[in-house]
């Protein structure tokens, strides 16, 4: 099968052999398929988009049509080893509540999101005076499903508030590579942020 997108490759490497995983907003299901096949993981993907659901089914994963804005009430506390949410946090109505739900149903979590403080996005607003668009944020403001943008600093502040411990952070630049100077000023040079989290 085709290799995973760069950010998903990192996520996949954070999942251990045989873990039970829940993927929130699983899209076409390719990440879960990779985890099922390469890591002998088990679990489910949740998705709301009809096309994503059909693609996930075609990719052989278990997918449940669900609205993440309604929480994760289908799942018991600690039902999963890992709860994964890639590029979905910014599209839900209450990211804070969903993060808390993640930490209820999973022992650990993986969250990735587009960093709104990425320097190119800052340039869009500061210089051009327009809402930012980039490869990771390819929608115009009026049609975007991404309704809650946050920056690396925002996210870390929220985690502190919610009592969520950050185990590890990675940032990627716009071509999904590790930014050369990203370790130095991640909130400026990181386009995509990836976190491993757990309850503090």
């Amino acid at each position, binding site marked *: 099968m085709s290799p995973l997108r760069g950010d998903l490759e990192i996520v996949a490497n954070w999942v251990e052999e045989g873990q039970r995983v829940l993927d929130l907003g699983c899209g076409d299901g390719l990440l879960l398929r990779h985890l099922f096949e390469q890591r002998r993981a088990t679990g489910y993907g949740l998705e709301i988009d*009809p096309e994503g659901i059909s693609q996930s089914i*075609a990719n052989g994963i278990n997918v*449940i049509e669900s609205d993440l804005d309604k929480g994760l009430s289908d799942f018991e506390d600690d039902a999963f080893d890992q709860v994964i949410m890639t590029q979905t946090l910014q599209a839900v109505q209450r990211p804070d509540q969903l993060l808390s739900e993640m930490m209820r149903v999973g022992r650990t979590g993986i969250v990735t999101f587009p960093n709104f403080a990425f320097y190119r996005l800052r340039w869009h607003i500061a210089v051009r005076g327009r809402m930012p668009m980039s490869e990771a944020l390819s929608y115009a403001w009026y049609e975007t499903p991404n309704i809650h943008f946050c920056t690396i600093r925002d996210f870390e502040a929220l985690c502190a508030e919610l009592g969520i411990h950050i185990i590890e952070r990675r940032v990627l630049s716009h071509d999904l590579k590790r930014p050369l100077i990203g370790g130095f000023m991640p909130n400026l040079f990181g386009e995509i942020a990836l976190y491993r989290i757990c309850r503090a």
Partner: protein
Amino acid sequence: MPVNLPAQSVGRVSPQSVHFDEPLMLECGQQLPAYTLAYETYGVLNADASNAILVCHALSGNHHAAGYDRDDARKPGWWEACIGPGKPLDTNRFFVVCSNNLGGCHGSTGPTSEDPKTGQAYGADFPLVTVGDWVRTQARLADHLGITRWAAVAGGSLGGMQALQWAIDLPERIGHAIVIAAAPRLSAQNIAFNEVARQAIRSDPDFHEGRYALTGDRPRTGLMLARMLGHITYLSEAAMGEKFGRERRNERGAFGFHYGVEFEVESYLRHQGESFVDRFDANTYLLMTKALDYFDPAAAYDGDLSKALERATAPFFVASFTSDWRFPPAASHEIVRALLDINKRVSYAEIEADHGHDAFLMPVPRYQEVFGAYMDRVAEEVGA
């Protein structure tokens, strides 16, 4: 049968039947000494008999699920939307089998069949059968056809309940369970509708305690009312509104101030009821509604559906329709939840459709697409 067959139709089909002389012990405690099952098949069984799909019908369905069973047939089988070349149950890949349930009135042994003890129609003496009984008869049909394991058992409504029961009762013989617009049990409201339907039939003066075959009468009015009531519950308010609104047959005329047919919806319902009476037996209708009412696989496990499903090994595909208020998405979701709780493999789609419960019979594009995607996966697994 249309002169120009639609490209994705299985075309002209013929029913078959098989007689079983081995007695069948029923859940009600009675025994049937022998019985016949009528069935149709579409597609070709492969060499290792791994590509067979069992399709289970709903309350008023039968074994004629696809294609045209007579040269002069105007309508195809009841699941034409999903069975045929290139459709979700793709007959180029799968061997699809659909039988008329025991107790039916279209060729399988039922109330209209001759009771060997009396030489007359069973009528009201035909024992009440359950979904579990149907599973056991369908397993015998599988034996007869040389199928040790179905690639999938699929159905909508009461048919979906049979797929669910299959997964619980004979886990080693079912590869996948396809449960569409079904429920883990009927709600009180559902049982109430069934009871009104039964009372309509049973209170018809021509019912004669179910022994109407001896009199030459048939409880036509009662069965018609039962069907009219049922039909209302299979449609959504929106679907009825869109189809009929308040249209009247004599659109420009004044109200007639009589009780004859005026509104289009009255005409439609009467037509549905009348044409149903010509093709369906009242005792079968009673028995089918009772099988629905009794269905509750969780009952034997203190009401815990997860416990009932613990034995199941088949992955599930569960689907519901947004406007279905007879078997609403919440009922399907209960099945999904029970499977999630015990870490069973399941996929679930809640399909936006205005047709109400009947949506499972309709060519709804998203329904066909997601069902098809799942069946592609099943086909790949069995090399079909």
